[in-house]
């Protein structure tokens, strides 16, 4: 409890307060008048409104499309299930600019929808919503699936014996049990889409803008720190409101559930209904996730001299100019940073989740909310905050390579908390009691009862934290270490240059990023916690 608190205070609270404070404290006095100015601006209000409703719509659409996927990937046993689970997570690591460009190609002129249906979606808000589904499909599948796989199927059987059909049994028994994790997933999707940046920049054009984009502009381009600070505060207020709503939804619904070994709940798809569902989910995944990824992969082979590996070969050379190291070496950097960030996120998030399960109360609920704030904070704010806050003793990390994983863990830790909490809260307290009366100390109880139950969720959370860290760009770009660019940073640099070689290498490197991500997730999923199989 103390460690996570300290972590968030030092690496979130302090830097963000510093940058906001710098913005509002100008010319030797506090400029609270700016709050009124900015809020009074109808353009700002318009942005706020758009930010909120597109996030809500994106969240709803993502839930709608991904909940069946969560079921299929958690409960149905079919070949390639693990691979599919890893693949749907790949978008998560993709730099949004890269993915946005794939969507532009698919939804724009002569794109997939245009040639097939004669609709161009690149100028409509649908492009944004679909891209948001693409990015966040995995959030729902993994967060909800982690709990779903462990729910005792007998509950649904009980409902069916009372006359409920499949759907009714799901709606009335399974869904309420899943609700905390559905809410957690919804919260995360909402926060991501609320702070959406790259997607909006590319697909929204100058017409659609989010608070995040505005904050970025005001901070990084216009350098109007007071306005940025006010917008950051507005964003905080909105995020806190959402957190309160989430807390209110979840609080009364969390109950101990009978959790079972996930290995026992998966079954082969039986009956036409389940086969149709599987087919539908595969179709959605293919259209919304695989197709855009495929566009990028295809581009990475599409050299000026026909299809080939030229871009990949170029990744190995240093004289492309963009880097003092060969671009492929950024893979190693990214993996290293991501591994460290994942460990930090797991430790901090795991401890926080454990503390949140054991105790309750107002203060703790506040803490719970604090943990989620980084997801709702602009990456520039964090990046600039780090710059000005962590540059003097006692926290002089200017030259420390730790800055990057720390910033990344800031995004990873809330994931860990949100994914693990619903599962931990579902663990029947009497199981812990059973362990205690058999002689287990509280720490042993955690290790022997909670950990095995939550290990699946922890693996999922770790996967997320890892993917987030691999893909994190916004904050990393401001604190990138000399000559240690991470992979997404490298992609961005390549994209920033004209010419087929640069663009092709960016695509090739993005493809490498996807492959690295999928492979890491597969490895992570196959790691078993040692305590699970022990006598």
């Amino acid at each position, binding site marked *: 409890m103390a460690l996570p608190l300290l972590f968030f205070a030092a690496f979130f609270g302090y830097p963000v307060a510093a940058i906001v404070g710098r913005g509002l404290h100008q010319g030797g006095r506090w400029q609270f008048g700016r709050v009124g100015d900015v809020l009074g601006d109808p353009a700002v209000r318009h942005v706020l409104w758009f930010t909120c409703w597109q996030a809500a719509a994106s969240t709803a659409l993502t839930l709608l499309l991904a909940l069946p996927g969560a079921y299929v990937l958690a409960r149905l046993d079919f070949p390639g299930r693990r691979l599919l689970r890893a693949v749907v997570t790949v978008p998560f690591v993709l730099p949004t600019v890269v993915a946005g460009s794939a969507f532009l190609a698919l939804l724009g002129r002569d794109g997939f929808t245009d040639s097939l249906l004669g609709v161009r979606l690149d100028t409509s808000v649908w492009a944004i919503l679909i891209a948001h589904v693409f990015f966040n499909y995995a959030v729902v599948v993994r967060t909800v699936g982690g709990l779903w796989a462990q729910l005792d199927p007998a509950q649904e*059987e009980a*409902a*069916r014996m009372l006359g409920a059909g*499949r759907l009714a049994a799901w709606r009335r028994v399974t869904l309420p049990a899943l609700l905390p994790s559905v809410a957690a997933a919804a919260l995360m999707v909402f926060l991501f889409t609320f702070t959406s940046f790259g997607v909006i920049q590319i697909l929204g054009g100058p017409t659609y803008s989010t608070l995040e984009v505005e904050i970025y502009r005001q901070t990084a381009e216009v350098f109007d720190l007071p306005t940025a600070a006010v917008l950051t505060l507005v964003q905080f207020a909105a995020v806190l409101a959402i957190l309160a709503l989430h807390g209110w939804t979840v609080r009364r619904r969390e109950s101990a559930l009978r959790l079972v070994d996930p290995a026992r709940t998966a079954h082969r798809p039986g009956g036409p209904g389940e086969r149709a569902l599987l087919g539908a989910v595969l179709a959605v995944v293919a259209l919304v996730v695989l197709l855009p990824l495929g566009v990028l992969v295809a581009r990475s082979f599409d050299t000026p001299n026909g299809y080939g590996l030229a871009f990949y070969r170029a990744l190995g050379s240093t004289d492309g100019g963009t880097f003092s190291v060969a671009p492929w070496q950024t893979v190693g950097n990214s993996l290293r940073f991501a591994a460290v960030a994942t460990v930090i996120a797991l430790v901090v998030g795991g401890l926080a989740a454990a503390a949140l399960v054991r105790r309750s109360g107002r203060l703790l609920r506040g803490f719970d909310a604090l943990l989620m704030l980084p997801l709702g904070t602009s990456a520039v704010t964090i990046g600039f905050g780090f710059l000005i806050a962590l540059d003097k003793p006692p926290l002089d990390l200017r030259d420390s390579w730790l800055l990057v994983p720390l910033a990344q863990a800031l995004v990873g830790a809330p994931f860990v908390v949100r994914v693990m909490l619903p599962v931990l809260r579902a663990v029947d307290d009497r199981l812990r009691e059973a362990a205690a009366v058999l002689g287990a100390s509280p720490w042993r109880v955690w290790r022997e009862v909670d950990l095995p139950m939550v290990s699946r969720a922890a693996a999922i959370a770790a996967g997320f934290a890892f993917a987030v860290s691999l893909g994190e760009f916004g904050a990393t770009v401001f604190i990138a270490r000399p000559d240690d660019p991470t992979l997404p940073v490298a992609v961005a640099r390549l994209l920033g240059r004209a010419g087929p070689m640069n663009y092709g290498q960016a695509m090739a490197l993005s493809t490498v990023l996807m492959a690295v991500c999928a492979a890491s997730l597969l490895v992570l999923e196959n790691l078993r916690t040692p305590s699970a199989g022990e006598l």
Partner: protein
Amino acid sequence: MGSALLRLEAATVRYGERAALDAVDLAVAEHEIVSVLGPSGSGKSTLLRAVAGLRPLDAGRVLLDGADQRGVPPHRRGVGLMFQDHQLFPQRDVGGNVGFGPRMHKAPREQREHRVAELLELVGLPGAQGRAVAALSGGEQQRVALARALAPEPRLLMLDEPLGQLDRSLRERLVVELRQLFGRLGTTVLAVTHDQGEAFALADRVVVMRDGTIAQTGTPLEVWQHPADEFVARFLGFDSITDAVVAGGAATTEWGTLPVPPGTPQGPCRLLVRPTGVLLSAAPAPAPAPASAADEGALRCEVVARTFRGGHVAVTLRPERGPRLEAECALRAAPREGDTVAVTFDPQDVVALPA
């Protein structure tokens, strides 16, 4: 039995290699109350799950009202099932649990509430609608589960140990009220229980299971009086069993010559003496003429254990020869441990089992 409401034909369920249900044939007539008895792990719950459609059969058929149920989903079978481990819905309160079935059957709200109140009254939890199920004691949970299973009034109701966690007086009251309720509604019932007294009190017919097969079916009295084999006999708690050769109206055993009821098949068999048929007389000849004692038909035994069971005392005897004997005595007539008693046998409690 063409009009059987439920019929199983060679119903088989396998878990891996082992058959938890092994080619079971069973017919339950409309309005019949059948109790399923059997040792732990003999396949009782599996039988109910197969009928409910929660576990597909690996072979054989389940017919309801003559219609094969293959492919019919559980909620379309018109059967109810109370689970052995209750499976109450933790997110719903007691009222929400009990009212779930009627709600699924689109019962109007008022009727539903009325029914919930009525059933909670029946199971001794009046006014418990608003309580959280996690805050109930074990027996209270069981009663809610029972009320929940009763609420939709299915044609065939299957109960898996419905009263197992309740105390005797509540159980006895419920057995009586449930029988009345089922009679009134015309419900057909298949109830698993491990309590013979409860089975006998509740059921028109008893089915005894053994390792996934049916060892015996019959009325309670039939099963009690004529266990089909040694397994059923021992399962019913009859442990005084020995080899015997029946000739005429007597059986020759290690315990001596025992009278047998008329009509007992002749020849070698296993012979069972029910505890009530082991008659003790205070103290026989101190030990002088063993031969004559045997001739008289009295067997000298030492009392090795006596267990007070409420109402009567179970006495374990070590006879001079042969395996141990169990006797049942009235409290005031019971000998003490270490006593020596003379035993005679009541032919009405001597049963020859198929060898």
